[in-house]
């Protein structure tokens, strides 16, 4: 089963050192997961002040500056893993460095079999 792990935390509480350490640990974790055959993809995201939201209403696209919702904790990155069950996913979530500063939301991916495979 595939799971998406969304990492939420208060962006403002991270020091530059903490952020760098978190990136390095995350990259190491991804390599580790890949060696176990559990890695699908992962990425950090730029600060939420770079977010742009789009809504289409009556055929017209409304573009606004900012995230979907203003919250105390912001989405800062994600992982997608392929594991046997929720317990394995939760075990990985507990190793994500962002879990120590914020919250990791684990969501099972609704798999469709008629999606294209990305051409590079």
């Amino acid at each position, binding site marked *: 089963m595939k799971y998406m792990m969304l990492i939420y935390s208060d962006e403002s509480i991270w020091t530059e050192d903490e952020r760098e350490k978190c990136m390095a640990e995350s990259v190491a974790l991804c390599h580790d997961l890949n060696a176990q055959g559990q890695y699908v993809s992962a990425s950090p995201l730029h600060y939420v002040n770079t977010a742009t939201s789009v809504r289409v209403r009556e055929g017209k696209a409304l573009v606004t500056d900012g995230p979907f919702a203003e919250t105390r904790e912001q989405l800062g990155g994600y992982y997608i893993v392929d594991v046997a069950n929720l*317990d394995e996913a939760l075990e990985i979530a507990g190793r994500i460095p962002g879990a120590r500063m914020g919250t990791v939301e684990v969501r099972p991916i609704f798999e469709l079999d008629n999606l294209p495979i990305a051409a590079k």
Partner: protein
Amino acid sequence: MLNQIAIIYHQEARRVFATLVRLLRDFDLAEDALQEAFTAAMQQWPRDGLPHNPRAWLVSAARFKAIDRLRREARLESLEGLEEEPVAPPEKEQETIVDDQLRLIFTCCHPALAPELQIALTLREVCGLTTEAIATAFLVAPATMAQRLVRGKAKIRHAGIPYEVPGPKRLSERLQTVLTVIYLVFNEGYHASSGDSIHRPDLVQEAIRLGRLLVELLPEAEVKGLLALMLLHHARRATRISAEGDLLLLEDQDRTQWDQALICEGQTLLESALLSRQFGAFSVQAAIAAVHAEAPTAAATDWTQIVALYEVLLRLAPSPIVELNRAVAVAMREGPAAGLALVDELLNRGELQHYHLAHAAKADLHRRLDQQQAARACYLRALELAQQEVEKKFLRKRLDEIDIQRA
């Protein structure tokens, strides 16, 4: 014969169900298949005689019913791997039955499920209670409870909660959730949190039944400690309420009416838990209950021992309610003034401001110090906060007694 089938249903239905969930990987399919297998047994067994191994017969019949249904409904992906006969060597049979029941319990009590879902699923799937019975016990509409169960099963399926006994690394942490669910069921039955009756025997019985099952399946120290705790409390069930329906405090209960057989069973379990040195908070609470159970009167209780046990409990599971209980025990050992100082300090910290029993305890200490005015004010505050009719009645009675004395 039909009587015999009813007995087998009572004994085996949930065990067969637990195995079917593993084989069929679907709670609803397993439940339907189980019912169909028993329907088939009602027709065939009176004609052909009781099978040599009724449980194996039921598992096999239910599995075929499920395969038939999946074929009819053309659910091919669910059929995958189901059509080969699962072979469990006979010497492994007992082990498999134990494992399947544990799988069911750990799945229903998975921490990814909200506590109210854990409780609902455990009572429905492990104990086999009907949705209506669970709804009545928790004073919610049957439709609400049915929805809760649907939500729980959907989460198990879609989130990929495994049907597994957790490995050694996770076992003790996951076992704690299971024990908490059982204790919540017991407490809901023992101190019904609202409504007219203080006691819901059906939930107490189910919790004890679950406790016994778990001791049989997984005889760890805290599992025994929890069962001991429930039995030692349950032993006092007949003396908690007077003939007039009034709440009786421990000191006013008729100790000759306590159930000695349950006390004895509780003590034996507790000893075994304490000897293992692996015990936790449930065993310590059971030890406190055991000290009460052994005392001939409230005054002759070993209060020093009780205070010491509350201190152990505070280290294992710190909580202001445990501190309150310790303060009351100190009052019994050293007199009401010593207890009052501790209760005041606790109330000043704020966490127990809205807990009716903290104000009731304070009132009782003032009463014993003959400070009627202060006692009256605290009883009034407790009465404002109490939800339980029987408790309110008790508090009103105490207030009346003070008013009569002062008149």
